C-alpha cells in the first residue's frame, strides 16, 4: 500500500549520477520526501521538523561512498537518526526495588492497559519466577474489574478480590497492603482509561500514584495513534512522570510513527510491544524493526 521511502529517494536521485559529497540542494530535495514519508507514517509534525533538521545537518557534505547511490546514502542517514532517536536497545521492565515492586499502567481509553497488564504479569511469572498480584482500579468502565479477573485466571496470576463501592485510591491502598502482607514480589495496578485533558481523572491518577508508589509507570498507547501522540505522551509524563512506554497493536498494518513522536517528546524508553489479543503476544522493543516500518521498508 505504501511506497517505501528508499524507492522514492532513489527515483529522485536517479537523475543525479554525480558522485562525491551530497550537496545542500540534493539533500533538501530528498528531505521533502523524507518529511512526507514521516507524516504519512503519523509522526507528529514538530517531531518531523526537528528530525529532518538533524538529518540535514548530517547529510550535507557527507561523502557518498562508491558502493551506494546518493539515495541509499540518505536512507542510511535517515535510518541511523531514526534508530538513535527511538533508543538504542531493548530496555526491560525494571524490578530493582524492595518487594513488592509496584507497576502502574496508565493511558487513554481502550489503549490496551488491562490486556497488557495481564501479559506482563504472565511474563514476570513464567520467565522470571515472580509472584505477581494484579489489581484493577477501574471502577468506571462496565466490567473492567471483571475483565482483569478473567485474564488473571487465564494466566494463573492472582487478582485482588473485588470489593464494590471502593474508590480507586482505596483499592490501591488495599492492593499495596495485600502485596506487602501476602509476600508478593510484584503488584500491577491497572487503571481506568482517561483522556489527558480530563482534569478530574488526571488528578485521580496522581493520587493513585501517591498511594501505590510505583517503581515503573508504563504509558500504554496504541501504535496506530496519529498526530495526538505528542500531546497525550507529554501530558501523562508531565503529570505522573512515566518510566516507559508500551505500544500496542503492532500486529496491525499501521506505520507506527507514534513511537517516534512519543519517544522524542518524553525521552522515555519504549519498553514493550503488544502484538495481539492473546496473552503471549508481548514482545521486546527493537528500534530497527520500528524504524523499518516507519520508513515503509
Amino acid at each position: 500500500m505504501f511506497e517505501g521511502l528508499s524507492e522514492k529517494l532513489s527515483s529522485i536521485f536517479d537523475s543525479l549520477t554525480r558522485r562525491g559529497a551530497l550537496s545542500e540542494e540534493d539533500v533538501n530535495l530528498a528531505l521533502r520526501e523524507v518529511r512526507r514519508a514521516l507524516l504519512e507514517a503519523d509522526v507528529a509534525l514538530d517531531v518531523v521538523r526537528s528530525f529532518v533538521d538533524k538529518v540535514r545537518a548530517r547529510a550535507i557534505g557527507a561523502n557518498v561512498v562508491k558502493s551506494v547511490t546518493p539515495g541509499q546514502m540518505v536512507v542510511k542517514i535517515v535510518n541511523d537518526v531514526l534508530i538513535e532517536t527511538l533508543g538504542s536497545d531493548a530496555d526491560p521492565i525494571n524490578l530493582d526495588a524492595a518487594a513488592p515492586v509496584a507497576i502502574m499502567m496508565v493511558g487513554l481509553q481502550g489503549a490496551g492497559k488491562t490486556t497488557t497488564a495481564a501479559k506482563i504479569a504472565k511474563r514476570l511469572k513464567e520467565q522470571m519466577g515472580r509472584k505477581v498480584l494484579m489489581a484493577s482500579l477501574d471502577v468506571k468502565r462496565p466490567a473492567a474489574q471483571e475483565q482483569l479477573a478473567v485474564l488473571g485466571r487465564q494466566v494463573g496470576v492472582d487478582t485482588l478480590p473485588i470489593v464494590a463501592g471502593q474508590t480507586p485510591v482505596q483499592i490501591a491502598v488495599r492492593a499495596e497492603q495485600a502485596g506487602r502482607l501476602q509476600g508478593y514480589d510484584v503488584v500491577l495496578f491497572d487503571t481506568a482509561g482517561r483522556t489527558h485533558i480530563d482534569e478530574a481523572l488526571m488528578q485521580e491518577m496522581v493520587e493513585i500514584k501517591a498511594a501505590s508508589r510505583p517503581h515503573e509507570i508504563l504509558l500504554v498507547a496504541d501504535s496506530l495513534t496519529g498526530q495526538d501522540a505528542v500531546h497525550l505522551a507529554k501530558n501523562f509524563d508531565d503529570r505522573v512522570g512515566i518510566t516507559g512506554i508500551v505500544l500496542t497493536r503492532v500486529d496491525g498494518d499501521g506505520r507506527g510513527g507514534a513511537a517516534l513522536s512519543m519517544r522524542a517528546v518524553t525521552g522515555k524508553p519504549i519498553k514493550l510491544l503488544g502484538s495481539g489479543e492473546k496473552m503471549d503476544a508481548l514482545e521486546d522493543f527493537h528500534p530497527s524493526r520500528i524504524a523499518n516500518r516507519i520508513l515503509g521498508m
Partner: protein
Amino acid sequence: FTKRKLDAAMLDELEEVLIRADLGVATATHIAGLVGKGRYDKSIEVDEVKTILAEEVERVLAPYARPLEIDPAIKPFVILVVGVNGSGKTTTIGKLAAQFSQEGRKVLLAAGDTFRAAAIEQLRLWGDRLNCAVIAGNQGSDASALAFDAIRAARESGADILIMDTAGRLQNRAELMAELEKIVRVMKKVEPAAPHAVLLVLDATVGQNAVSQTEIFSKVAGVTGLVMTKLDGTARGGILVALAEKFQLPIHYVGVGETAADLAPFAARDFARAIAGLDETDAPRH
C-alpha cells in the same frame, strides 16, 4: 484586526494546521489549495483565514453528515457494529440503545464479542442500566451462531431494533476478518436484507490507519456508515475528511465521552471549526 498577504508561507501554515488534525498530507495540501484559490496574493485578515479554512473543510464533509435512519417498516432493524480493538464499539452500542429506548423503540442487544475477557459482561451491564434485553452465548462460542439466534429472538420478542456487538479485530488479520464475513453471511440466511446497517466505529486518536480500516471493513462487512469516538480528547479526527470523499460513507455520530448521553449527531460545521482551530463558539482563538 491584522491583515496579511495570503502567500505561500500562509498556505504552508494552513496545511500544517490540517496535518496536525490528522487529515494527512495529501488532503491537507488539497484543502489548503482550495483556500488559496482566487485569494492568492490578496490581503486578508488573519482570523478570516481560519474561518475560510473551516468552510472548505465543512464543504467536504457536509454531504456525509447524515443521521442513521431506522426504517420503521423493517422489524427487527438489524445493526451490526464493527471495528478495530478498543475503538469504542460496545460503549457506542450502549449509547445507541439508550437513544433508541428513549424514542420508545424496543431494543435487543446481542453480545457478539465472544472473545474478549468480560466483553459479554460489559454489554450485559449496559443492558441492565438501560433496561434492554441482552442475548449472549458463552465466551469462546461461535459469534455467527449467536447472530442466527439473535435475529430469531428479536423476531419472537417483537423487538424493533437488534444491535449486535462484535469482537474488536485489526483489519489485516485475515482469519478474524473471515469470521466477520461469516457473521454477515449467517445473518443473511435468517433474513436476506440483514444487516440493515453496518456501523464502523473509528477512534479519533487513530491517524492514517483509519483509511485502511475503512477500506477493508467495508469490503468484508459492507459498512454503511461511520461513528467517530473519543472526540472529547484533543485528537481532532481529521482523517474523516480524507475518508468522506474516498469512501462516500455517511458519518452518523460522534462519541464525546463514556456515558450513555455522550453521543451526538455528526455536525460538519462544528467538526470543521474544531479542525481549523476555531472554538465551537464564534470567538476566534489567540
